């Protein structure tokens, strides 16, 4: 199999969730961007599930499968 290219680095991280992890990576000199994430549909789980389903339907045509 192809070895994931990320094994050789550099690792560039998109961080969603705990800001603590972005702070730690940043302090280590890792390139990281922290997303100002908020629960979709105002945290309403039922509505969020409906949005996720719409997400799937609206997803763009398959991107070429090639690991970075």
């Amino acid at each position: 199999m192809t070895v994931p290219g990320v094994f050789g680095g550099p690792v560039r991280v998109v961080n969603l969730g705990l800001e603590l992890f972005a702070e730690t990576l940043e302090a280590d000199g890792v390139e990281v961007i922290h997303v100002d994430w908020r629960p979709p549909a105002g945290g309403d789980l039922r509505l969020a599930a409906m949005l996720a389903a719409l997400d799937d339907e609206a997803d763009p045509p398959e991107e070429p499968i090639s690991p970075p």
Partner: protein
Amino acid sequence: MPVRACVLTSFYRDSVVLMRVADDVRRRPGVREAALFMGTPANLALLEQAGLLEAEGRRARPEDLVVAVDADSGEIAATALAAAQELLLARRHTRDGPRRARPRTLESAVRVLPGANLAAISVPGAFAGREAMRALRRGLHVFLFSDNVPLADEVLLKQEARRRGLLCMGPDCGTAYVGGVGLGFANVVDRGRIGCVAASGTGLQAVACHLAARGEGISQGIGVGGRDLSADVGAEMTCFGLEALAGDPGTAVIVLVSKPPHPDVLARLEAALAAVRKPVVVCALGLPARPRGDSVRWVSTLVDAAEAAAALARGRTWTSRPFADPRGAGQRLDRCRTVGLPGGPGILGLYTGGTLAHEARFVLEPLVGAVSLGAGADSRPPSHRILDLGDDAHTVGRPHPMIDAAGRAERITAAGDATEVGLVLLDVVLGQGAHPDPAGPVAVAVERARQRAAARGRRLAVVASVIGAPRDPQGLAGQVARLEAAGVEVLPSNAEAARFAALLLRPELAATLLGPAA
């Protein structure tokens, strides 16, 4: 006491930020309790139960943040509320400056950071699957720290990842090392030539730290989450990880750490292991010992996994030992005997690491008899019990116990009053992202618990191991010293800690465990 609350409309902050602000507010003079929670029905019920929900708080919706304070006077409570709001806003301004806009979605983040190749996701479990799938579809590897992710979502995510040649590490993946970068709760260790695939965080942390202590390092550490070897997930990422490490030129020896695989998955796993053309050490906790294969060495503890891998990398032979220093362990036992043996029949394990909790159980059972392992409180505990406090059941709406030390400290203190408990067994886990001083709250709680036990005329023994590396931000030596000063017996590995706990309860085991040194 006056309780005051305010609701910040459509205001989201992660659970660690909320915990930090609550800690700061709680330290203000006259403040008895402070709580910051998103206004979900479950959180509002918790606040109600704690007597911290009044009229203002009840109007909160799930997307709102509730700040509640109980203080000596209404004035102090009102000032503390204002301080909490200031702290919440100040944190962001300090980090980013008031004008810099942050991306609100994964898609816009990828535009801001060209060449992004990995998404680290730790949003609440109910929403994590959706974000992880978005990341995979945009060609990003995924480190999925979130727990409480539905199993069906995990299956879909890992199939998608595999199809795209991407890593999906998790859900419930506490730690990973990829391309020289530690993710999640990672210890500060050198990069090296040992690759690791691990069910979850603390197993990988323990192996990385034991390797560091032996002068070896991790090439890649691929966390797969605790359910990867279930029948549903079918070892999808474990097999992928083994194949990836087999092809990685920087990996000389591979370590696989797992909980017992489902019987239907074992054959697939063994086939994947057989296909690897590098030395492999397998530590499948709880799986019966297996004969030594040509290139696969089966071991039963995490420290043995690290020792065996280090020996294989150096072309040396290696034999498992119950204690690395049996003479030292014997002297320690003699010292403990002089002070007094545990004043109760049972062991209570209070663990922050799931893999460490499992390991302790499997080490203890042959020595002391049945040990129950559970996430919660049983009404009639058997004599020996281990709680995995990092389990999903304990982490809904609150930080992991490796970050939030308060819950475990309360349980340690309460053990002083539990006459059936003679010994408390602990893990103390260091590393980036973890509590800045995990030994501190443990030591304070141990001192209180022992005072309570002494007031009842009995002795409470406490045994621990510290999973850490010398360059960890908490300082390994200082953390060990803090625990020892509180009277905790600190052993060099979790397996040794469990064996030493057994020795304290059953000194007649010395002949078996310490050999001639006894």
